[in-house]
């Protein structure tokens, strides 16, 4: 073995200390009571707490709806951006990513204020709109990346062989772009499930999402219960990650602009 592999050692130690240990601590705290004894009480508390359960269900629902909304709006946009016949300028793509550089909380506050001015009551509708607004670029970018790198000769071959435009799309372009969609789902679903500040601003604290109750518990020194909630979210993340497989990772690696 090449001895330069030992160069990874400092980072390995760093990862064990700042990534593995903290996750182990979440599990540890989840199974302890406030005085450090083993208990399952934190879990029974969650599974018998109607409010917490319905918040959990609502968070998953909102995250799913937001992800679907982002695909529905983002896919056509990415498709148009990647089609040379429709869009020749790379600057247009940059324009879609640019808003992400403005502080997300500030943009969210402004969105909420725009709703107020238009006389729209803050609630689930505005929450979905605002979240879709915040995360849409994360859906467009990976799909655009995959579509842009895609070998156009497949689609041309299908056309030459007599496929109608919608057939070319459904049987060639769409399947080939799936890695981009999957990594877009990861980049939208995970943050939406766990967001807290954004949902507070967009609903004027009327709707609580899972992230908010984690934050409230941790901030009120209910560390053990907060750890259980975090652990439950971790499980959701692990399941989603396993489901998506590893083939889509390269789609997200478009690099920085």
């Amino acid at each position, binding site marked *: 073995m090449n001895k330069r592999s030992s160069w990874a050692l400092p980072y390995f130690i760093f990862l064990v200390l700042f990534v593995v240990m903290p996750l182990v601590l979440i599990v540890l705290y989840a199974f302890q009571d406030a005085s450090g004894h083993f208990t399952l009480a934190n879990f029974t508390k969650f599974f018998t707490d109607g409010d917490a359960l319905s918040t959990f269900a609502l968070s998953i629902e909102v995250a799913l709806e937001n992800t679907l909304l982002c695909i529905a709006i983002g896919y056509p946009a990415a498709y148009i951006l990647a089609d040379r016949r429709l869009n020749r300028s790379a600057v247009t793509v940059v324009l879609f990513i640019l808003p992400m550089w403005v502080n997300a909380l500030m943009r969210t506050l402004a969105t909420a204020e725009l709703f107020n001015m238009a006389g729209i009551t803050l609630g689930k509708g505005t929450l979905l709109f605002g979240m879709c607004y915040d995360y849409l670029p994360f859906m467009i970018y990976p799909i655009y990346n995959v579509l842009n790198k895609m070998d156009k000769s497949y689609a041309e071959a299908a056309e030459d062989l007599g496929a109608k435009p919608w057939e070319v799309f459904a049987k060639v372009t769409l399947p080939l772009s799936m890695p981009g969609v999957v990594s877009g789902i990861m980049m939208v679903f995970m943050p939406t499930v766990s967001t807290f500040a954004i949902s507070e601003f967009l609903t004027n604290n009327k709707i609580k999402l899972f992230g908010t109750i984690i934050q409230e518990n941790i901030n009120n020194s209910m560390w053990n219960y907060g750890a259980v909630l975090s652990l439950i979210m971790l499980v959701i993340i692990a399941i989603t990650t396993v489901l998506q497989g590893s083939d889509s990772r390269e789609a997200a*690696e478009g690099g920085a602009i």
Partner: protein
Amino acid sequence: MKTGTRILSKAYLWLILVILYAPIVFIAIFSFTEAKSLGNWTGFSLSLYKNLFMGSMQNSSGLISAVENTLLIALVASAVATLLGTVAAIGIYNMKGRKKQVMSFLNNIPMVNPDIITGVSLFLLFVFLHFSQGYLTVILAHITFCTPYVVLNVLPKLSQMDPNIYEAALDLGATPAQALRKVLIPGLRPGMISGFILSFTMSLDDFAVTFFTRGTIGLDTLSTFIYTDARKGGLTPELKPLMTIIFLVILAVLLFINIRSAKNEKAS
């Protein structure tokens, strides 16, 4: 392609862009009036800009130190992450089999973890170790979520390099330090730069991780400052000109880079 389709798709893109930019334009417009709350127009005025630059507003020290903290933390965290990540990438590249799998698995965890989990888990770590929270813990936390992206940006550069060049430099009498400086680093530089930029922007934009690791010493970054401000009801009005300026600077930089690289592409 039919003209109808072309017009329709252009219109679709522009519609989304208008919606994406509406809040930002909204902030920009209302930065030119004196009123405290967003959406309240009391006539054109540059006083918010003046306050911002003269530092003569309520809570001015809070806002200014939040901006300084944000930049300082982003700079230190992304510099350390770039160094740590580049060295790690060289190591990982030279690994084989099981070891390599373990490293890339560990490297993926911070990227897949949502911010709130990273934040809460690090919070528990610092509590567990009785580590008092402040600048150091926030910077460590930011290094944690930035470094994986540096590794991912440097690794492809390593596989594009001829593995023998480094050995050749050593054979020809270069010391390892010289070989590193003159051969390895220049080859990896593009990956290191994009890793640094990515780290820097993520650190600037971070809210949740900072929120959980900043402790109770009153350390604020721009994000936590805005959050606390908004929860108190009523944003510091000078945030509007500040955001407008930040946006315009980024817009100018990005357009400059892209137009220049588009020209270079055409020229070559």
